[in-house]
């Protein structure tokens, strides 16, 4: 196998929104160092923004006094039912406006208010409207101008740690020609995005790739970090988004800008019907059910309750707000970010000015930048987090600060976007901003400490090389033992593995097929089945091409992600986000015992998980 070794100062894994931010900012602070982006796709159109977006969901408007950072933190905290890292959220809020101004400078069309031209048009309190068809291409142009080299089509499978345990690079392969890549770096930024396709999607067959978060969101950020031994946080808070049925068109602009009503089949508002019960069971000490806006998961819960009572379908009443005059806004929302929804309308002859459309909660996703907070545990900014360490602790997995902002519990491995946990509501602009924070922090780490010296055993690399290509070798060994087809007694192809994973997660870990409910017994049984899958992966995983090798390593990252989700769900004995999932054996929110982060660490040599609680410290009252 052809192989290449590349030395650099900063290695950025994933050139999506946050990875591009990291490259840009790292360059500003290290003008003459070697900065590299590596991505399994082509960064001009990669990640969750590959299709474009029609809004920037995080912009405070500090310069016009539209919001304060404190208000932003409160909004995020309420939406996640009281459990977020306020230090990290605050940090996003105070920097994010600069990022959006930069995007506009680069040529991203942001709508300006006609009456107050210094202001943007608001979709809702925190969102601004854009014509974002080319959002990712523009941001990628900036990243390409900042990075020394961009390696497109190289999938990273494992993070490397040096003899001292510091992050010092990564290995992977070119998904087209199979070349083995070894990157040796002084610091590593993990920006490999969130995860879809871990739970059985509602879409089926040929359309299985039509999910809300893209099918290429492979949970690599989590898989890479879990495999490397980083501390993870809040992996149980995987979430569900209400979306237009079958096309997965987002609802934000319809709810916030156009103010369309969402009702059950009897034309009644779902939240209104369930408010009392929600208040009784889920208000907690924070009064979450009374918060404005109502937390996303509580709104989903009301919808689910109505569906269970047989009062579906749920309708978005586009016909009440859309006219021939303003319908372009509605179409733009989909054409710039979820084109398939426009096709579903055309295929079903739906005229949105004349009839409502169906809304349905999606399968769960694992990610850290939207209305949820899965990811790795990070050190906070020095000026906010330094004094917030519980006394007497020296385990980073229980601290808020250990020197470098957004550093994971592994020295020299930095986090941003979906990879960084307990920091919800970053979205595209916040993810890029967190990339900038991580990029600067990595630069500072290298300046202060010199970073890793990159001393990795030759045998470690050789072992990884053999491991990475083992699915291809296994296939070659057995390929001619059957007359044809994909059925072998001792080969597991990616498609078979992912469908198995999705079935387990759907049935045991609160997917849509089990109405987002689970309990101790289900989780224990499901977990046993996941372990068999993980074991089968080790013994039988097979690939016929480099493309399938990509898929099989994506599956590896997804399995590790799923394992951690289950570990966390087993540990948290309450229902904190009832619309995301309900533990039917603990069907209420329990602030007394569970207003905590759940953190974990995986020891891959012993195949053992450690899971523990960390108290929530609030900095904004």
């Amino acid at each position, binding site marked *: 196998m052809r192989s290449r070794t590349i030395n650099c100062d900063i290695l950025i894994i994933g050139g999506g929104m946050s990875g591009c931010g990291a490259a840009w900012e790292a360059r500003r602070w290290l003008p003459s160092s070697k900065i590299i982006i590596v991505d399994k796709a082509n960064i001009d159109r990669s990640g969750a923004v590959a299709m474009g977006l029609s809004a920037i969901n995080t912009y405070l408007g500090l*310069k016009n006094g539209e919001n304060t950072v404190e208000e932003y933190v409160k909004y995020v905290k309420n939406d996640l039912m009281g459990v977020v890292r306020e230090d990290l959220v605050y940090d996003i809020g105070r920097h994010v406006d600069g990022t959006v101004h930069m995007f506009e400078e680069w040529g991203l069309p942001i709508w300006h208010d006609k009456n107050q031209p210094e202001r943007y048009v608001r979709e809702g309190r925190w969102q601004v409207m854009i014509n974002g068809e080319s959002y990712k291409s523009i941001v990628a142009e900036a990243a390409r*101008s900042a990075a020394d080299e961009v390696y497109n089509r190289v999938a990273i499978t494992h993070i490397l740690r040096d003899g001292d345990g510091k992050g010092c690079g990564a290995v992977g392969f070119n998904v087209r020609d199979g070349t083995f890549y070894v990157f040796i770096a002084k610091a590593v930024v993990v920006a490999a995005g969130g995860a879809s396709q871990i739970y059985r999607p509602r879409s089926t067959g040929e359309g299985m790739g*039509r999910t809300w978060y893209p099918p290429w969101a492979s949970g690599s950020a989590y898989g890479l970090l879990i495999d490397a031994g980083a501390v993870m946080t809040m992996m149980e808070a995987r979430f569900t988004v209400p979306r237009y049925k079958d096309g997965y068109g987002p609802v934000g602009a319809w709810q916030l800008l156009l103010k369309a009503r969402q009702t059950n089949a009897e034309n009644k508002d779902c939240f209104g019907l369930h408010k009392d019960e929600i208040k009784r069971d889920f208000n907690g000490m924070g009064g979450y059910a009374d918060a404005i806006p109502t937390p996303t998961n509580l709104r989903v819960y009301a919808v689910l309750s109505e569906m269970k009572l047989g009062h579906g379908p749920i309708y978005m009443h586009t016909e009440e707000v859309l006219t021939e005059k303003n319908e372009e806004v509605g179409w733009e929302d989909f054409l710039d970010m979820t084109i398939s929804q426009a096709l579903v309308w055309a295929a079903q002859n739906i005229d949105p000015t004349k009839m409502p459309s169906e809304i349905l909660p999606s399968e769960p996703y694992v990610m850290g930048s939207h209305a949820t907070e899965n990811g790795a545990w990070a050190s906070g900014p020095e000026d906010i987090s330094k004094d917030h360490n519980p006394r007497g602790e020296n385990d980073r997995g229980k601290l808020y600060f250990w020197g470098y902002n957004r550093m994971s519990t592994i020295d020299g491995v930095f986090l941003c976007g979906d990879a960084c946990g307990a920091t919800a509501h970053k979205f595209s602009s916040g993810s890029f901003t967190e990339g900038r924070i991580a990029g600067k922090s990595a630069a500072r780490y290298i300046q202060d400490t010199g970073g890793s010296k990159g001393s990795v055993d030759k045998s470690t690399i050789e072992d990884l090389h053999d491991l990475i290509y083992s699915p291809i070798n296994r296939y070659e060994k057995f390929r001619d033992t059957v007359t044809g087809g994909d059925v072998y007694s001792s080969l597991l192809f990616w498609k078979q593995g992912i469908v198995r994973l999705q079935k387990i997660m759907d049935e045991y870990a609160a997917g849509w097929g089990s109405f987002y409910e689970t309990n101790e017994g289900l989780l224990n049984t499901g977990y046993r089945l996941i372990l068999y899958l993980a074991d089968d992966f080790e013994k039988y995983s097979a690939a016929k091409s480099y493309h399938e090798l990509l898929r099989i390593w994506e599956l590896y990252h997804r399995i590790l992600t799923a394992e951690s989700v289950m570990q966390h769900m087993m540990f948290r004995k309450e229902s904190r986000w009832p619309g995301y999932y309900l533990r039917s054996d603990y069907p209420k929110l329990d602030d007394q015992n569970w207003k905590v982060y759940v953190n974990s660490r995986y020891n891959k040599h012993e195949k053992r998980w450690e899971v523990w609680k960390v108290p929530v410290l609030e900095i904004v009252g």
Partner: protein
Amino acid sequence: MPTFVYTSRCVGCGDCVDICPNDLMHFNPKNRKPYNIEPEGCWECLNCVKVCNRSAIEVRGYADFVPMGAAIDVLRDEKRNMVFWRIKYRNGKIKEFSFPIRTKPWGSIKRPKAADPAQLRSEFLSDEPDIIGIKDLKVPSAPREVSK
């Protein structure tokens, strides 16, 4: 709506192969023209359609849950910096829209300049606070622990 390529229009340039975020467009060794090797992995992002200047790629709704007979055409023009959409309903109705994609020419972003090295150990990101439009960086008004 997975993609497919018309043999007669495709010249085999490979642009769609280069752009697909999910590594789906691969050359068919028999005719050296690309096709979607894994329709069930297609997100319908239409990036392959937008990049094909021969209009050789089309999409069709997922046969297993979307009625057939509708179509979407798109033309993305980096000179005029506009994207043009044409939506054909199953019942024949046509809708057309166009939107801006960028306000600056492509390739206009320059390699960024060095930030002030004296600020490396501060909390300022490059060009802050000016770029935010305020005078200083915010810190929590009461940086204190209010619970536990």
